[in-house]
């Protein structure tokens, strides 16, 4: 177990470092221009958001529609901090990210208290309402610009930051899932009654899953705020939550690797479709439908299975 884990960790770290070096070299040499770099940066932010939502939706098995709300809390909290405190960026930004994360975590905890009493459709509605409440509160707070928007946020989010925060998010999520806490979270998805009968404190683990998810939504929001340098409550609507949920569903509920891949694909795709100008969203929707259908095609699965190295095949997931 320990030995296997070390080997796995080594491969993972190596992949991350090589990936980073290759991308940086490509950026320095100008093969990847600023436009593509921006898309890749957005992809990293979306990875953080998708992987974190997958903890509630995929592993805990509860449909949550308020992810954009937690993202907004993180975005505004971190922006408020970095705008009002003048430290050197190398110190200020990580603190701002953590503040964003913890602010969202607290919001997540507050929402989880009523949300825990319900499940299924009802929980979905509560989280949806929570997201809207957060957005409307932000709209009416003048110190953060209200509806006019919040401007002048320092642009700290570089590609390196986004890349490594995404990596941390992936590792932390994977690590959580592979611990006893992760197993208890998954057991709730599998069978809540059996989980309770096996001594799992289901309320406690629902809260853990929920706030872990909210924390990284806030972190994603912090990255987003310091990349765009401008925030408006209108960014964090239900549409944004759905957008993230679509990435989770396409990647597969309960598959972290899937979330990463689909977050990248669904960030890049709309950009690739710019050539269709007015018909872009139409083509995008069609592409989504085709991808979802293809995902459930047995022939395609067989083909993908053959392409995949055997070591990668095992993943806890459910359809």
């Amino acid at each position, binding site marked *: 177990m320990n030995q296997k884990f070390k080997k796995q960790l080594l491969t993972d770290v190596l992949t991350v470092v090589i990936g980073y070096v290759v991308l940086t070299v490509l950026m320095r040499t100008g093969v990847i221009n600023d436009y593509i770099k921006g898309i890749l940066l957005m992809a990293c932010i979306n990875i953080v958001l998708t992987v974190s939502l997958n903890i509630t939706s995929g592993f805990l098995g509860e449909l949550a529609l308020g992810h954009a709300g937690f993202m907004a809390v993180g975005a505004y909290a971190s922006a408020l901090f970095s705008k009002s405190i003048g430290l050197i960026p190398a110190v200020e930004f990580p603190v701002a990210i953590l503040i964003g994360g913890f602010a969202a975590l607290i919001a997540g905890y507050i929402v989880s208290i009523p949300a825990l009493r319900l499940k299924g459709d009802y929980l979905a509605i509560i989280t949806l309402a929570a997201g809207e409440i957060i957005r409307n509160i932000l709209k009416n707070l003048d110190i953060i610009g209200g509806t006019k928007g919040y401007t002048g946020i320092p642009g700290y989010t570089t590609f390196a930051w986004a890349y490594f925060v995404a990596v941390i998010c992936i590792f932390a999520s994977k*690590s959580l899932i592979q611990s006893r806490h992760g197993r208890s979270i998954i057991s709730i998805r599998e069978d809540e009654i059996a989980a309770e009968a*096996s001594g799992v404190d289901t309320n406690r683990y629902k809260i853990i899953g929920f706030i872990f998810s909210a924390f990284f939504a806030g972190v994603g929001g912090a990255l987003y705020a310091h990349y765009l340098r401008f925030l408006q409550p209108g960014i964090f609507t239900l549409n944004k939550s759905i957008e993230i949920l679509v990435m989770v569903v396409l990647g597969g509920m309960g598959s972290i690797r899937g979330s990463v891949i689909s977050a990248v694909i669904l960030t890049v795709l709309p950009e690739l479709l710019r050539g269709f100008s007015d018909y872009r969203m139409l083509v995008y929707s069609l592409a989504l439908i085709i991808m979802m259908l293809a995902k459930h095609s047995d022939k395609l699965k067989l083909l993908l299975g053959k392409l995949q190295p055997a070591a990668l095949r095992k993943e806890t997931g459910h359809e």
Partner: protein
Amino acid sequence: MSNVVLEVRDLGINFGGLRAVDGLNIDVEKNQLYGLIGPNGAGKTTVFNMLTGVYEPSDGTIKLNGELLNKKKPHEIARKGVSRTFQNIRLFKNLTVLENVLIALDTQADYSILTGVLKLPKFFRQEKEMEEEAMRLLAVFGLDSDAHTLARNLPYGKQRELEIVRALGTHPKLLLLDEPAAGMNPQETQSLMDAIETLRNTFDISVLLIEHDMKLVMGICEKITVINYGTLLACGTPEEIQTNPQVIKAYLGE
């Protein structure tokens, strides 16, 4: 203090206007194999659900080794030492056999979330202990060779056995089995009977079981309680129950 593990007194529950269980007394002694039988709809599973905290009894008391269990939550009761299996199997189907047991073994680990996420040495030490314990439990039913199979891919009989292993994972003092032999053929039932006796002896636990298979109940139970319409009909040794005219009447009619 007597050696009564489970003491149920005047247990009753109402569902709206329906009195599903009324004035039930059960005493399960240490290391005893105890049968709870009765015609369909007699309230047997309802009794189990009250014992495990799924339903809250309307009246009466449930005590485990003298400690009151009423109003405790299911997971608290599980951790106090009452664990159960279900009439229609409830496994964590998309997890492996090993993981199913590890979830129940959570009681024996105490590493924190941070230790788990950062994968500190304590994580590896406790996970290794848990895994060894899980394999030891699985070996009781010979399921250790299937440890990495997904639970849903197990054959039916093995799924029932895995559920028992998972129930043992919380290190219970009292094991509740809800129709463990349902859907099993005579050979499987026979080996299940042997297994129940073995685990009672190895793990030093009491077993309370609901079963319709009279061969199993009469074969291994030392004491039997018969309920009908939620009330006590008879209580005694298998011989006493088999010759009790009221029991025969309830099962076969006049």
